């Protein structure tokens, strides 16, 4: 086996381990998929009628809910990463000739896959509720690419948070900001309609350009400047998350 293929093979083995964990704990997956759908039903059928967004509310809210579905499932990843570090199994991996990063990449890939599954579910439900995007095939491709990028970025950041947390409980709490941030963005209502202060925060926080880009792509006219900001934020988060995770892992492992 060559020097390059060892980390890949190790990551594949770790990925299989993490997938088994996820399958053993179906409530986590169910929860991560169900909660955004419940949110969707609430916003579209309960609150949405009162919001004036200039278009059909389901068309407006779906991009926000797609991002929400990504961040909602992260808590379990942080918990899993942290319990890997605090339970004995990591000591076994550390004294084996196993690629160091494989423990982390396994978690990242499983988390990203879970995000994509949740997003597929939310888009399916959206269509059932009358979501009719004007996106072309190319726009869809762009949207999927962005969702993938955001998922990977959020996964690395979550893995880092999980590694940095002192205990399993605090690891779960560490991802709460990632779940709360979409509420303070243009996910459910345009930023211009918000109170001063909140409005500036919503305009400048990372989820707004991401959601706006997604919204633009799905409605068939992607905004270039927002897209740049969205990609920059995501790439930045991925990089910071990755570097933070790796250095924390080295320190703890």
């Amino acid at each position, binding site marked *: *086996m060559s020097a390059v293929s060892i980390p890949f093979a*190790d990551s594949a*083995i770790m990925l299989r381990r993490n997938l088994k964990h996820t399958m053993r704990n179906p409530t986590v997956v169910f929860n991560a998929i169900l909660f955004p759908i419940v949110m969707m039903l609430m916003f579209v059928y309960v609150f949405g009628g009162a919001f004036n967004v200039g278009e059909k509310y389901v068309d407006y809210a779906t991009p926000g809910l797609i991002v929400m579905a990504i961040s909602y499932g992260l808590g379990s990843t942080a918990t899993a990463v942290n319990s890997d570090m605090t*339970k004995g199994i*990591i000591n*076994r991996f550390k*004294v084996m*000739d*196993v690629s160091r990063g494989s423990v982390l990449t396994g978690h990242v890939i499983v988390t990203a896959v879970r995000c994509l599954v949740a997003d597929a579910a939310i888009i399916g439900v959206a269509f059932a509720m009358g979501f009719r995007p004007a996106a072309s095939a190319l726009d869809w491709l762009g949207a999927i690419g962005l969702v993938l990028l955001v998922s990977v970025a959020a996964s690395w950041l979550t893995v880092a948070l999980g590694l940095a947390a002192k205990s399993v409980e605090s690891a779960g709490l560490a991802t709460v900001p990632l779940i709360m941030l979409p509420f303070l963005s243009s996910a459910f209502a345009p930023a211009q309609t918000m109170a001063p202060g909140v409005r500036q925060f919503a305009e400048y926080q990372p989820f707004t350009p991401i959601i706006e880009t997604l919204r633009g792509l799905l409605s068939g006219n992607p905004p270039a400047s927002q897209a740049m900001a969205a990609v920059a934020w995501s790439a930045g988060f991925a990089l910071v998350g990755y570097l933070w995770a790796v250095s924390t892992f080295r320190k703890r492992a």
Partner: protein
Amino acid sequence: MGVRPGTDGEGMRNSDIAVSGLRKAYGDKVVLDGIDFDVTAGSVFSMLGPNGAGKTTTVNVLTTLLKADAGTVRVAGHDVASETREVRAAIGVTGQFAAVDELLSGRENLRLMADLKRVRSGGRVVTRLLERFDLVESADRLASTYSGGMRRKLDLAMTLVGSPRIIFLDEPTTGLDPRSRRTMWEIVRELVTDGTTIFLTTQYLDEADQLADRIAVLDQGRLIAQGTPEELKRTVPGTHVRLRFASLDELDTAARVLAGSTPDDQELTLRVPSDGDSRSLRALLDRLDEHMIDAKEFSVQTPDLDDVFLALTERTGAEVIAQ
């Protein structure tokens, strides 16, 4: 110290673990204060010491988990600091706390090890280990449902996947019931028969006595004695003959007749210092015969490792006070 130092005449070729001048401190606290030892390939080396003596720190350095502050450590012929990968490929480690994946079954845990170590025909290796460790019935249950003893067994089984050449066992029987302890001992003996080198830490003297070819006693970061169990026992004077009598009268007479003896009036026993060889024993029995004294019980007592350990650690305790 009276016990010969760690190097055997055979030289480096035969040593699977070679440690010299190993030091490790956490801030001001010196955990390992320059220790040296050698472990011959295919032997069991036991490091004995009370809690906090530095046993686990030693294991962590030897297994590449921790960097030493000073000294050289070679494991399987490779330097632990610069040839970490080679060392890792040659060793198996079972720590104090069972390192099993609780969300996987016993079989899956073993399979994971087989995959990571690229063991060919992993399925067969896994099945054989499950049988050997008597885990077949619970093989497909999650490890989180296992009892403490079962987890330790699974943990050791995971260590054995891929047949590592050197195995480190850090207090492998702490907290196990007597039967699981025996099983663990049997497994260690089997491994040695197969030519595996074993580094074992323990707080139990009988365990070291049962298993080890050589013992090193670690106390406050220093090796205060090294040798075979017999050599260590010989360092403590105390082989004696114990006689039990039927009456106090007989005990008193015997105590007067046998020089240097100490009677115990409660137990009706007499402790007589002796070399324990046949000549001195015959002399002792002849002496009893001359005075027509009849002992009900007769036994030769050699010091056990507990005596050795207490004597050694007391001695260093006194040194510390003297400083």
